[in-house]
């Protein structure tokens, strides 16, 4: 690699000075993930404003053999956007590519640049009467480019699918600077290999996503949100099927939360009111939505149709003994308060302890088996660990997380490794995935080698070598190229 001064000099050839950051303090927020687990170092952070600039940067990086670490909103959970500690990398932040290139009501699609903030896309679509359903807790900071690069999931996957399912086309800059234009908003396009899906979820290891064409939907106009107490996970899974059938398949969210978690949330955020007393052992935050505004307005008997659907479903479950208690949000404030519980869960567990965090995926039919097995193994190793497993039950995606005993635990840090192993052992027993929606990043590279099919790993290595023969695109993430 060239010396640093020469390299920075080279960058300023095609970027504005204010789009290159080299000051140590200014770089700091980009070098640590929000959970504070991963910290790296970099020579510079560059903020290109156009595809042309990204293209020039990439060609330059290839010529001068500079490691490129792409970054969106830096809200990832597996260190995928954080460089290593060698200080040899340049972070390529897409956060200043924020144009919305096209918005089509007729096609129900929008073409947006990678740095658009998810929440701003929600607002943009909503102002125009349409709905972009990708929704996760980091929506205020995460970017669509990052969502695509990690194939992010979130709370609406049960109805609309994950980011991959919402993407129609991509614009990708390859390492040699060529711009691959797959940016079609076509719904159908069977013209050879589906290259866009190679890049979605590739975590910046194959190329740089600079823009995307995304699907839009009719805007939900009426909602009914309930927090429901259930005896166990198996019953919750049964209830999901029933609610989908009762609501015309309009279940937007179905989030499992145990009482252990809610107690932590209320302790750390005392302003959030407790909606059910006493707290049932397991709760599900469920939401149904309708795009027909009339479903949210009282009919001639004074009943709101969508609330009636939810109430009838809850009453059936109550009488069948599948629901122990429940509450319905009667206005948007209460709806927000119910969602606050779920959305504050990661932060609450982080304040309470250094959690053992996982992001596992199992079939819905195996959720209960996995939960019981994992809980038993965990308590065998460390009886005082608190299981705070929450997540997207509708997708079979659990964040089976553990926190230390109330009041602190001197043994916690030494037990963590064994606790992770216990959870992953239980996961292997039910053929689950070690990463449902967070990705591999730098956190799970070694683990992936152990669990992924060897042929699949071999093909992945071949693909990586094709797009990045010298291993400078987000090195050390997803798969390692040497050894």
């Amino acid at each position: 690699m060239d010396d640093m001064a020469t390299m920075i000099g080279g960058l300023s050839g095609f970027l504005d000075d204010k789009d290159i950051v080299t000051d140590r303090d200014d770089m700091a927020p980009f070098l640590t993930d929000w959970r504070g687990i991963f910290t790296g170092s970099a020579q510079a952070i560059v903020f290109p404003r156009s595809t042309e600039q990204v293209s020039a940067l990439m060609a330059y990086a290839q010529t001068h053999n500079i490691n490129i670490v792409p970054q969106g909103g830096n809200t990832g959970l597996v260190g995928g956007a954080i460089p290593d500690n060698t200080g040899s990398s340049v972070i390529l932040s897409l956060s200043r590519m924020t144009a919305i290139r096209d918005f089509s009501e007729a096609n129900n699609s929008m073409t947006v640049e990678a740095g658009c903030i998810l929440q701003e896309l929600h607002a943009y679509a909503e102002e125009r009467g349409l709905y972009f359903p990708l929704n996760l807790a980091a929506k205020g900071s995460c970017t669509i480019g990052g969502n695509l690069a990690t194939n992010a999931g979130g709370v609406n996957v049960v109805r609309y699918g994950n980011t991959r399912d919402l993407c129609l086309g991509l614009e990708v800059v390859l390492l040699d600077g060529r711009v691959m234009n797959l940016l079609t908003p076509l719904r159908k396009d069977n013209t050879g290999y589906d290259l866009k899906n190679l890049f979605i979820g590739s975590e910046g290891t194959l190329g740089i996503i600079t823009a995307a064409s995304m699907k839009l939907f009719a805007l939900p106009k009426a909602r009914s949100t309930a927090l429901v107490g259930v005896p166990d996970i198996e019953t919750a899974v049964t209830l999901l099927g029933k609610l989908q059938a009762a609501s015309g398949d309009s279940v937007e969210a179905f989030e499992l939360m145990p009482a252990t978690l809610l107690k932590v949330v209320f302790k750390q955020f005392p302003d959030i009111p407790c909606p059910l007393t006493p707290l049932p052992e397991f709760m599900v935050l469920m939401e149904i939505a309708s795009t027909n505004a009339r479903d949210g307005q009282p009919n001639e008997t004074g009943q709101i149709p969508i609330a009636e659907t939810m109430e009838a479903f809850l009453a059936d479950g109550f009488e069948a003994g599948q629901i122990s208690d429940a509450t319905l949000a009667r206005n948007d404030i209460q709806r927000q308060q119910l969602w606050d519980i779920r959305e504050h869960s990661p932060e609450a567990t982080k304040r309470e302890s250094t959690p053992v965090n996982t992001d596992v995926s199992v079939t819905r039919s195996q959720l209960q088996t996995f939960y019981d097995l994992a809980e038993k193994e965990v308590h065998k190793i460390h009886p005082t660990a608190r299981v705070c497993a929450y997540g997207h039950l509708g997708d079979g995606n659990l964040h089976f997380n553990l926190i230390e005993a109330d009041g602190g635990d001197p043994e916690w840090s030494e037990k963590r490794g064994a606790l992770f192993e216990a959870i992953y052992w239980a996961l292997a027993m039910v053929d689950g995935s070690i990463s449902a929606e967070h990705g591999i990043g730098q956190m799970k590279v070694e683990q992936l080698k152990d669990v992924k099919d060897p042929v699949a790993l071999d093909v992945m290595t071949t693909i990586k070598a094709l797009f990045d023969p010298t291993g400078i695109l987000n090195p050390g993430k997803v798969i390692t190229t040497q050894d």
Partner: protein
Amino acid sequence: MKILVPVKRVIDYNVKVRVKPDQSGVELANVKMAMNPFDEIAVEQALRIKEAGQADEIVLVSVGPTQSQETIRTGLAMGADRGIHIEADQETEPLSVAKCLKAVVEKEQPGLVLCGKQAIDDDSNQTGQMLSALLGWAQATFASGVELAEGTAAIIREVDGGLEHIAVKMPAVITVDLRLNEPRYASLPNIMKAKKKPIDQMSAADLGVNTTPRLKTVKVEEPAARQAGIKVGSVSELVDKLKNEAKVI
């Protein structure tokens, strides 16, 4: 003792209100509606008084269109006992609502009327005061603390510079403020029970009240849009702009 709680159907607090193109009012078609938040606090306080054994029945009353029944049903799901719906299709004004409530009070003979201090749609803050004057009852407004005793109520009011403690004679009209309590969530059994609780129907005319509006809305306008901020390059540019453009220093 019986407690009467008037509840109003208003646009949900979280909804972004839009003005009609002809500026005659705000858009209500297909807009999400909810119980006025201050009225929820009044319902909650009534429930707490009943749970403390100081009241035996809570009656909700709403003056408004047919859909107001849904608002009453919401309060019944929180735990109130029964409802009275006074049908009024025109926009209701504080005086006519107060007159309807007076007629209901005379019929029901409650020992206490607990209402929200104001409705968040028209922000009139008049109905409770007018009702107490029409009834010749004591009034306590903006209550952030309510303690009932034999024949009196001790009220805490948030005023500039501190808390004012007053005592009023019962029966009284008490209007409640935001910090009095946190309204509860309705439990599933209560939501199911609420469907079977009675709501009496009547019209304002049945009560001998003329609801023809006395006030005329001339025009409704959106607030002026805020201008976007700008970034300045230096302190001297900032000072220059504050001096010469904003003219604040």
